[in-house]
């Protein structure tokens, strides 16, 4: 609740900060301070201190799981702002508005992670999506950016329609939007209900860019300004997955036999499409957008397995994935050439950037001693614990090995090949933040116990 109300207020504050301040520097400072406040407010709520006392019991439940994820999302956004806000200034004149939109997205995230009614879920998803459409088109003079925004908006609206349709059908069969009041016994397995559920599954899959609903992803990620791509691909995506898990674990959990096979097939398709297409990309940015589809496949295990390991795993995976992807996109925004050749010899000219990229890629590939390994480990564990569809786990593992192929191409280019300087130097502050990200990734990989310990406060 703290985070939800405050992020909405702070979003408005950021909007006006653009009017008050003429220069970007104070706006940036305001934004970062506001984000820190937001994080603290969220932490306070975890400790039981609530600033606002509205009765939302029928719509939202701010349980510890949601709060913990909000904490991760806000912290990741803070790091994101610290590393990339200088890039954000270069996108266009409306720097304050970009920050405001990011705050609104956070508000949407807090709703999505704690909904109790299908209507709140819809609201949350839309509050996330609409600012994203705008951010995608933020680079107004760039045709590619415009095209991406339009494409994203059209496709997004379409999936919103499907989602509403699904919600309507479920309402038709149940007579309520509130999840707690729905009757999910097998006797209630009406065609109407199943159809509604499948519509919701498809709509959520679209938002989470799960195959075969992923077609918008590479174009949108490629077209959007790089800074916003990293936000979209990480924090927003992870939040959608948390909503996804709440919906299918909490609401439709008892009808698991109807949808789990579909989710299993979708996982396989997502992993396959994401990984195999990523192998053939020539641009690192496009490779990362396909690999983010592949990562979504692993996140989807959280929906599929639906046990404690899956719920914990989703948090760890999100944290690991957000940190690593934000780190690597921060490096990417320093590059002048996005192709693999553009990274040639980076280790020689920019050792810190190369080191960060290496750690982040190792984490994304799931190599032990990094947070990414732990995330993958938890997801596989969750899937094995279900005791069925073991082929899926083995398939996922084979695909993880494929992912090493394209992740390591970047490492090869940076360390083992020679090339001219193709990057802008990072400021020392950014370098320190990047190193901090690496340290976090490694610490999370070696001592996950401390991190997980917070889960059970």
């Amino acid at each position, binding site marked *: 609740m703290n985070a939800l109300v405050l992020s909405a207020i702070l979003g408005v504050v950021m909007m006006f900060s653009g009017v008050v301040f003429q220069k970007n520097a104070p706006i940036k400072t305001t934004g970062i301070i506001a984000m820190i406040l937001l994080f603290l407010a969220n932490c306070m709520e975890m400790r039981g201190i609530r600033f606002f006392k509205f009765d939302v019991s029928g719509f939202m439940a701010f349980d510890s799981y949601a709060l913990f994820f909000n904490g991760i999302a806000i912290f990741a956004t803070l790091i994101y702002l610290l590393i990339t806000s200088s890039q954000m200034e270069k996108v266009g004149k409306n720097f304050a508005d970009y920050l405001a939109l990011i705050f609104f997205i956070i508000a949407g995230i807090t709703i999505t992670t704690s909904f109790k009614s299908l209507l709140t879920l819809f609201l949350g998803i839309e509050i996330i999506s609409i600012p994203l459409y705008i951010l995608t088109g933020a680079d107004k003079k760039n045709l590619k950016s415009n095209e991406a925004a339009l494409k994203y908006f059209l496709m997004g609206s379409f999936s919103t329609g499907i989602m509403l349709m699904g919600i309507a059908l479920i309402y038709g069969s149940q007579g309520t939007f509130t999840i707690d009041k729905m009757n999910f016994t097998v006797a209630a397995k009406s065609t109407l209900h199943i159809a509604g559920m499948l519509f919701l599954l498809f709509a959520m899959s679209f938002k989470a860019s799960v195959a075969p609903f992923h077609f918008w992803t590479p174009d949108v990620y490629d077209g959007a300004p790089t800074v916003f791509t990293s936000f979209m691909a990480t924090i927003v995506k992870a939040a959608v997955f948390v909503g996804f898990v709440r919906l299918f674990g909490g609401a439709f959990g008892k009808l698991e036999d109807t949808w789990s096979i579909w989710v299993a097939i979708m996982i396989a398709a997502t992993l396959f499409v994401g990984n195999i297409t990523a192998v053939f990309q020539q641009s690192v940015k496009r490779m990362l957008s396909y690999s983010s589809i592949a990562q979504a496949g692993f996140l989807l295990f959280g929906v599929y397995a639906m046990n404690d390991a899956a719920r914990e795993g989703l948090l760890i995976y999100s944290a690991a994935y957000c940190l690593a992807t934000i780190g690597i996109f921060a490096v990417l925004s320093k590059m002048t050439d996005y192709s693999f050749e553009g990274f040639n010899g980076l280790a020689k000219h920019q050792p810190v950037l190369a080191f960060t990229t290496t750690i982040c890629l*190792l984490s994304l590939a799931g*190599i*032990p*001693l990094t947070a990414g390994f732990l995330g993958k*480990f938890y997801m*596989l*564990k969750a899937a*094995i*614990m279900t*005791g069925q569809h*073991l082929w899926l*786990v*083995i398939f996922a*593992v*084979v695909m*993880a*090995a494929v992912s*090493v*192929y394209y992740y*390591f191409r970047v490492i*090869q280019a940076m*360390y*083992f*090949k020679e090339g001219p300087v193709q990057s802008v130097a990072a400021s020392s502050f950014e370098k320190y933040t990047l190193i901090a990200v690496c340290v976090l990734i490694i610490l999370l990989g070696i001592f*996950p*116990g401390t991190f*997980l*310990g917070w889960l059970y406060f």
Partner: protein
Amino acid sequence: MIALLLILVPLLSGIITFFIKKEEGARTWSLLSAIATFIIAIIGFTCYSNTAALSFKAHWMGILNSSFSLSADGMGAMLCMLTGISFPLIFVSTWNTVYKKAHNFLGLMLLAQAGLMGVFLAMDALLFYFFWELALIPVYFICSQWGGEKRIKITFKFFIYTFIGSLLMLVGILYIYSKTNSFDITAFYNSNLPLKEQMWVFWLFFLAFAIKMPIFPFHTWQPDAYEQSPTAATMVLSGIMVKMGVLGLLRWLLPVLPLASFSWGDTVSTMAVIGIVYASLIAFQQDDMKRLVAYSSIAHIGLMCVAVFAENKSALQGTMIQMFSHGINILGMWIIVEIIERKFGTRKMSELGGIAKTAPVLTIFFFIIAFANIALPLTNAFIGEFLMFNGILGVNPQISKYGIPLAVTAGLGIILGAVYTLKMARKVFLGETNSLTEQGTDIVFHEKAILGIIAVTIIVAGVYPQPLLHSFEDITNSILHKSDVLHLLKPAKH
């Protein structure tokens, strides 16, 4: 405590090495660290029966029921000692090899050493997996950065191969964990999976080990990787890293999945035997000395695999002693190849010849090592191979009906081994000198010293193997006890 030190010393000194920019300083520092580790390993080996000193257990990931648990039995202590002795020898033998950014190279080598020690000591499945990967990653960077011309592609292939193997093993580990709810090795030993499940979990584990060893047909990464890696890394890969696979079979496969190991035993042995003959035939065709030794290594490792699945005392003891012997012998081989390459700038046998005339001391050492490679009596490999063949021939007919065919075919590999090793000796060391080899000089003092150590080890272990065999006694018995299929199957028959 000793177990922890064996990992911590190389790990910390490896990290420090990255910051010693002066080449001479980095070399001295890493050599000192390697010697220190060796001394710790010797202390560990001499008190291997004192389990308290060699065990270490700490809280790690309590939520997952995984602990930082290390312990050395006879086999672990022996492999740690092999690792301990190999690294100083590797560092000294490559002392004059020039590396770009030597401090990074040496730092990565020490990290790999820490990973290897961890693999040999880990008594927790998750920890084992951690170290398994930790050993691999530094080697990937070493080979990709300091290797030969085609290094990037080849190392990449090697990495993907082993990584996919490791991940499959992780699935296997998780599967057993889902039944036992603990990663502790004793919990794994007591998991008692039903045969049906064991049958396919076996392959998840076996693929990881088979790729690492490597066993036919999972070996294709190996000759290229050995050829393209810098020799120091090749020594680590072939001398020590392949032992990770054998150790995996003995510690993590046979006792954990005894029924499946019994059921798949003949299949695996057949694969290994095919590998022995195939690799020996290819080794015979090679002109590059490095490739020849690489293929001969496939043959030697294949024999160990057959012996492991014979599941009797003689075979297991032979395998363990052969792990040590093979490590020492192949290290010696690589050192000689490295010396020849540095002296003459080529590894091609067709371009060399008559080195015996210009470098008699080197030749003497080569022949000692070559004889060990073909397992002549009085050398260490003889003991190992004798015990292994003895075990394979004397295999309990209830475990395998194919003891004699397997032993005969594998024996073919030994004969071929003698043929190609002697062919190499003849082409490189004997015969007339040519314009290239005329200028050769004999080896210098530090090279004599390290080859001397290897030669002495070969002969001492060959003449008096009792202390080694004695140290394996307990672990062999315990493996046999845990994987006693006949005993396990008996109640089912009633």
